[in-house]
């Protein structure tokens, strides 16, 4: 069953993230992907994440496809203009990639090529519109295509952003522009997330809660201070701290598993998107403890 069918079926969906490496050695990445095989419903391949140059998402999506995974192509507006974006989307389509996650993308000044010229010719809302258009057989300029695409398009949302209202405005624009599913920024406060879900349920879209694995109290503090839209509650930081250095990762896995379990059992959202950021090997363990394997 495809990712879109599974989401439609009402099953609690699990996706995870694979970050393409910087360089041509893909052994470790393939190993992680192998570990996830048959366990998750789709795998997101990041697009030059944090504006750090890596293997392109499109090539790695194709590798995932060959392995038997269902890939979600992440596509940012940072590096390509509307011609490049559409061209890559058509390419993805003929390679058999069905899912695309439309994002604006971190600014180059966050990454490892700070002198790069940022493109941002279009942005996430408009990119969703482009995907819609390709799906009905027209390019952005209205030209008829020789064969249309059949993408299932998604976007991202930050339920804990501050201020929240302008982000919700953008969320609604994304829905209007054709987003069918959303993956959220990391969620740590389930009660607060429930409020967001109460709002999001008014729209005909599926929501996958972002689960970022906490590896230490230090990481949690760092995210609170520097990563926008992420708020790790103090109780969780204390939990990681009291676990001690050795056991912090284990405690982080427990936290992630507990959250996934609650989200699923209470039917709070439609699934989760697990981002292990460097600890991809731990994803099966998280799923096991969450009762998903």
């Amino acid at each position, binding site marked *: 069953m495809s990712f879109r069918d599974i989401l439609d079926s009402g099953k609690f969906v699990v996706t995870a993230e694979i970050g393409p490496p910087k360089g041509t050695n893909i052994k470790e990445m393939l190993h992680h992907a192998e570990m996830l095989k048959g366990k998750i419903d789709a795998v997101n391949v990041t697009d030059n994440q944090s504006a750090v140059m890596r293997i392109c998402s499109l090539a790695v999506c194709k590798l995932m496809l060959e392995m038997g995974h269902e890939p979600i192509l992440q596509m940012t507006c*940072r590096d390509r203009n*509307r011609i490049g974006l559409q061209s890559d989307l058509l390419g993805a389509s003929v390679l058999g990639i069905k899912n695309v996650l439309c994002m*604006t993308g*971190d*600014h180059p*000044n*966050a990454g490892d090529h700070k002198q790069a010229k*940022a493109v*941002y*010719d*279009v*942005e*996430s*809302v*408009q990119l969703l*519109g482009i995907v819609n258009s390709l799906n009905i057989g027209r390019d*952005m300029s209205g030209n008829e295509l020789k064969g249309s695409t059949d993408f299932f398009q998604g976007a*991202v949302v*930050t339920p804990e*952003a*501050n*201020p929240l*209202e*302008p*982000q919700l*405005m*953008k969320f*609604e*624009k994304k829905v*209007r*522009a054709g987003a069918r599913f959303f993956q959220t*920024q990391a969620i740590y406060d389930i009660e607060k997330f429930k409020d967001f879900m109460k709002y999001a349920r008014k729209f005909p879209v599926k929501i996958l809660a972002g689960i970022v694995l906490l590896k230490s109290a230090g990481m949690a503090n760092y995210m609170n201070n520097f990563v*926008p*839209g992420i708020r790790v509650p103090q109780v969780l930081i204390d939990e990681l701290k009291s676990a001690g250095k050795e056991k912090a990762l284990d405690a982080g896995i427990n936290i992630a598993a507990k959250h996934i379990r609650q989200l699923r059992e209470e039917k709070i959202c439609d699934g989760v998107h697990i981002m292990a950021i460097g600890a991809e090997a731990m994803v099966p363990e998280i799923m096991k403890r969450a009762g998903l394997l």
Partner: protein
Amino acid sequence: MIITKKRDFQELMKNIENYNRFFLLGCSECAALCSTGGEKELDEMKVALEAEGKEVTGTFVAKTGCQVLGTKVELKPFKDALTETDCILVLSCGAGTQTAVELFEDKPVYPTNDTLFLGNMTRLQMFDERCSLCGKCILDKTGGICPITACPKGLLNGPCGGCKDGYCEVSPDIKCAWVRIYERMKRLDKLQEFCETIIEAKDWAAHARPMNLNVRKKEEVKK
């Protein structure tokens, strides 16, 4: 106004090391307000060049350096000084420099300034970029605040996920343009329609360079 900044003097000296006699041309508009090309700066440049053993054959602050014909007329009395010079240094923006290039086909012309942006002067000698001359203004749709310029990503439909506590992902010194726009729309009680409208991708063809505009011709055609 056009915002300019003085170039490094040593860099300038390298540019002009093979020339000895200079004519200095300033501009009384933007460059004067930026302290890069008024009377005072021309005097300072003269002193600095002479300290390097160079000669200055004449100086003049044009009324509007980017006005080609006007500047040509203004420079008439300086014919001798201009004939004697090996090189013209222009203390204004890049447009002013190219006025001199157009007027003096046979003379080398060098800029003494870097030309930065179209800016608003918010206080004396403090300048903010608010418009990037995109060719098709969308201020009517964004509450009068320009996201093409004020948002480093030039987003048109709301903030990116990098907005943190109302500040920009790119620099904690910049307020997120989209938070500002949202707040202004709220204050003007225009939120609903604003939120429901998706602004289309920008028409960059309206910004195709080099641009030119001939208003007169149109009027003449009408006659």
